[in-house]
C-alpha cells in the first residue's frame, strides 16, 4: 500500500496487537481510514478495544505499551512507529478518560502552557495559544484559577484546552463526556463542532451515548472483539435493532415503548411507613459554602426514587446525610422514624446501604468472598448466617462463580456488581446507589438497571443518584430534582415531564 498523503488523515492497518502479558489479542485485523475534517464516533462494548485503538494513533502503542504489534499506522501522514509519541503529540492530540491524571499545572494557565512549553515555543506564542485554547473551551478568564478547585466539567474542558494548545491536526477523545451531566455533555460537543468548523480538525471520539453520537457525528465505527464490525452513517445504525443488539449499543428505535412503561409502573411495593425523613435540612461546607438549603423530604418504605440534577446541585450531599457521612448544619434526619444525630455511620450501615460510583474505592480484599465478608465482620453474626448472606448476595448479583477470584481480575461491570453485593450482604432496607450507569456501556447499563429493579421488587427502598433520564423516567416511582441545594421538583415521572414541558412552553 502507499502511505496516505493528506494532512489530518488517519490510516491504520493492524494485523494484530496483544498487550504484554495479555491472554489474547486485543486488536485483530483492524482497518481504519478517516479523512481530514471528519467527525467520527467510535462505539462498542467495554473491552472491545476502543481505548487500545485510540492509543495506536499517536504511537502510545507500540512505544509506551510494547506488547506484540503487527501492522502499520499513519496519522497525519506520519508512520507512528517511526516517531516518538512526544513528536506525534504536536499533530495528534489525545485526550484520555480521567481528567484528573491529565492536569499538570497548579494554575489553569500553567497547565495549558505545559504542552507548548514542552515543544519549546517562545513565551509570547505560548501565552497566545493559552488564550485562544481557553477561549475555545469556554474557560476564558480562568488563567489564574487553581486547577484543584475546578469542577468536573471544567477539568474535562481544561484537558481539551491543554491538547488544543499544541494545535493538533487530529483530535482524539476517549469518552470525554461519560462523567458529565447533560448540560456539560452538550458544551463539549458544541465545542468540538466549532473546532472542526473553524480549524478543519479531524475528530475521533469514543463513547456509549447513542443520542449524542447520532446528533453530532458524521460517521460511526463500531468495534467488536478488536476489529471494526460496522462502519457507516449514524442514522443507519441506531434504528437498526439487529445491529445495535449484536454490538451492545443502545437502539433509539426502542424509545417508543417508554410511554407504556410509565403507565405500566405500579406502586405495589410501597407502603405508608416513612423510612427517610429530612426536616429543614441545611448543610454548609467547612469553608462556608452552602450546599443544601432547607430540604424537607419524606420517603416511604419501598419507594424507588431517582435523584437528579446538575453536578454540584446537592444530590450526593443530601444522600451522604442519610448514613451520617455528613452531618446537618441545621435540621434533622430521621431514618425509620429515629433521629440519627447520635448514631455512627457504622451503626447506620445496617439500615442504609450506600453504593459508591467507583467500585475501586472500596475493593481491597484478596478474594471476592472476603470482600463481601468485610462488612459483615462489623455486625455480630453467627458463621452460618454470615455464610448464607455472602452466598445470597453473590447469587443476587450473579457472581457466584467468581467467589474465590481476586477482585481486581474482574471486569469493571463485575467489580461494580461486587460493590453492590458487599452492601447487599449487610441487608440494609434502604439503598443509596450513586450514579449506577455512569461510564458504563449499554450492556452493563441494562444489567445495572435490571439489578435495581430486582432489588426494588425484593422490597428495598431505593434512592438512585443519576443523570440517566431514561432510568429515572422508566423505573422510578418518583423523581426528585435538585438545583443549587434546593429541591426544584418532587413528583412522579409523568407529572415531572408535564411540569418541565409546561416550563419550556412558558418560556
Amino acid at each position: 500500500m502507499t502511505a496516505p498523503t493528506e494532512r489530518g488523515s488517519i490510516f491504520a492497518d493492524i494485523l494484530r496487537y496483544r498487550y504484554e502479558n495479555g491472554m489474547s489479542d486485543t486488536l485483530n485485523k483492524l482497518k481504519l481510514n478517516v479523512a481530514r475534517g471528519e467527525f467520527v464516533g467510535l462505539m462498542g462494548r467495554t473491552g472491545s478495544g476502543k481505548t487500545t485503538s485510540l492509543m495506536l494513533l499517536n504511537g502510545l502503542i507500540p512505544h509506551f505499551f510494547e506488547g506484540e504489534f503487527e501492522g502499520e499506522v499513519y496519522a497525519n501522514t506520519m508512520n507512528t512507529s517511526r516517531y516518538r509519541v512526544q513528536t506525534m503529540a504536536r499533530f495528534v492530540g489525545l485526550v484520555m478518560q480521567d481528567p484528573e491524571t491529565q492536569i499538570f499545572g497548579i494554575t489553569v494557565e500553567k497547565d495549558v502552557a505545559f504542552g507548548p512549553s514542552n515543544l519549546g515555543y517562545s513565551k509570547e506564542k505560548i501565552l497566545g495559544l493559552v488564550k485562544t485554547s481557553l477561549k475555545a473551551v469556554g474557560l476564558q478568564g480562568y488563567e489564574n484559577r487553581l486547577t484543584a478547585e475546578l469542577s468536573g466539567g471544567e477539568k474535562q474542558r481544561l484537558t481539551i484546552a491543554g491538547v488544543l494548545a499544541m494545535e493538533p491536526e487530529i483530535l482524539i477523545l476517549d469518552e470525554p463526556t461519560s462523567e458529565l451531566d447533560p448540560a456539560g455533555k452538550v458544551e463539549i460537543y458544541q465545542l468540538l463542532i466549532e473546532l472542526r468548523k473553524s480549524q478543519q480538525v479531524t475528530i475521533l471520539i469514543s463513547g456509549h451515548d447513542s443520542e449524542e453520537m447520532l446528533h453530532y457525528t458524521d460517521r460511526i465505527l463500531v468495534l467488536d472483539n478488536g476489529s471494526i464490525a460496522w462502519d457507516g452513517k449514524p442514522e443507519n445504525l441506531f434504528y437498526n435493532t439487529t445491529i445495535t443488539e449484536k454490538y451492545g449499543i443502545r437502539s433509539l428505535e426502542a424509545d417508543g415503548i417508554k410511554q407504556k412503561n410509565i403507565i405500566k409502573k405500579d406502586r405495589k411495593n410501597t407502603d405508608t411507613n416513612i423510612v427517610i425523613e429530612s426536616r429543614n435540612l441545611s448543610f454548609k461546607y467547612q469553608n462556608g459554602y452552602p450546599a443544601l438549603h432547607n430540604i424537607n423530604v419524606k420517603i416511604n418504605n419501598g419507594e424507588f426514587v431517582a435523584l437528579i440534577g446538575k453536578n454540584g446541585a446537592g444530590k450526593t450531599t443530601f444522600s451522604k446525610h442519610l448514613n451520617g457521612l455528613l452531618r446537618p448544619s441545621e435540621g434533622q434526619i430521621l431514618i425509620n422514624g429515629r433521629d440519627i444525630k447520635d448514631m455512627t455511620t457504622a451503626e447506620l450501615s445496617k439500615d442504609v446501604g450506600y453504593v459508591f460510583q467507583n467500585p475501586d474505592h472500596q475493593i481491597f480484599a484478596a478474594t471476592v468472598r472476603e470482600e463481601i465478608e468485610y462488612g459483615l465482620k462489623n455486625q455480630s453474626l453467627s458463621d452460618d448466617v454470615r455464610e448464607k448472606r455472602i452466598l445470597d448476595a453473590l447469587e443476587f448479583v450473579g457472581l457466584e462463580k467468581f467467589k474465590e477470584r481476586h477482585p481486581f481480575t474482574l471486569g469493571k461491570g463485575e467489580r461494580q456488581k461486587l460493590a453492590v453485593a458487599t452492601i447487599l450482604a449487610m441487608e440494609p432496607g434502604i439503598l443509596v446507589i450513586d450514579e449506577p450507569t455512569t461510564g458504563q456501556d449499554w450492556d452493563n447499563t441494562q444489567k445495572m438497571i435490571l439489578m435495581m429493579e430486582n432489588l426494588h421488587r425484593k422490597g428495598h427502598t431505593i434512592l438512585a443518584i443519576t443523570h440517566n433520564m431514561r432510568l429515572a423516567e422508566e423505573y422510578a416511582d418518583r423523581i426528585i430534582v435538585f438545583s443549587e441545594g434546593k429541591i426544584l421538583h418532587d413528583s412522579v415521572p409523568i407529572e415531572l415531564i408535564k411540569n418541565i414541558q409546561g416550563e419550556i412552553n412558558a418560556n
Partner: protein
Amino acid sequence: MLIEYYPSGSYIHKLDVRTKCLGFLTLTLISFIFYSPVINLLLVLFSWFLLFSMSTPLSRVKQILKPLMPIFVIMLVITGFTYPSVNFHSEQHRKILFTLLPGGLLAFSLGGLLYGLTLVLRIFVMILASTVITVSTPIEDILQLLKKLKMPHQLAFVIATGIRFIPTMQKKSEMIQEAQRARGSEIGKGGIVKSIKSYIPVLIPMIVDSLRMSDNLAIAMLNRGFGAMKTTTDLYEIRMFPRDHIICAVLVLIIIAALWARSQNIGAL
C-alpha cells in the same frame, strides 16, 4: 516552614525570592553568632511581626510550633545541666542555681539555662523566618530559583507535579474512607493494633489507585509532548527590582554590623 503559599499580596510577597532568601540567611546568621537570648528573642519577635504584617494565618503557625514544645523543654533542661559553667565569660552566668546530686554533680547553671533558651529561640527564628518565605512565595518562584542553581527541569517538574497532586490524593483518601465507613468500618477506632488494622481497607485501594494514576500520568505526559525538546520554555522568570537591590544592600550592611558587634564581645554569655 510547613505552611503553603498564602497570596495576601503584602510588600514581602512582591520581593524577589532571592531577596527573601538573603533575609532568611541574615536572620539565621545573626541568631547564630549571638549567644544572648535577649537578641534572639528580638529576632523571634521581628519574624513574628513580619508574619503578622503579611496577614499570615497565625493560628496555623502556632499549630506547627505546638508539637515542638516538649522538645524545647527537654533542650532547656539538658543544656542547663550539661553545659559546663566554666565556659561562660561573666561571673553572673557561672552561678549555679541548684544541683541535683550531692557533691556538685549535675549542677544547673544560670548560663546553661540562658544558653538553652538561645538554642530554642534559634529554632524559633529559623521556623518563623522560613515560614515568611513559604507563605509569601509561590512554588514556581522557588522552582525557578532552583533551576537557576542548575537543577534539571525534570526534577522541577516532579516537584511541581507532586505538589499539584496533594489535593487530589487528599480527596481520593476521603472518598475511600467514606466508601469504607459506609460499609460499617470504624477507621482509626479501637486499640492500637485494631486502629492500625482498620486502615488497611483504606491503604490498599489508595495504593492500587495511585499505581493506576501514575501509569495514566505517564501516558498523559507523553500526550503533552513531555521530553520532545531538550529544554522547555519558562512562562515567567524571577526578576530583581530596584527595591530588591536596596533591601539586599541593607541586609549586607546589617550582617557586617552584626559581625563587628560580635567581635566587640556584644551578645556573649
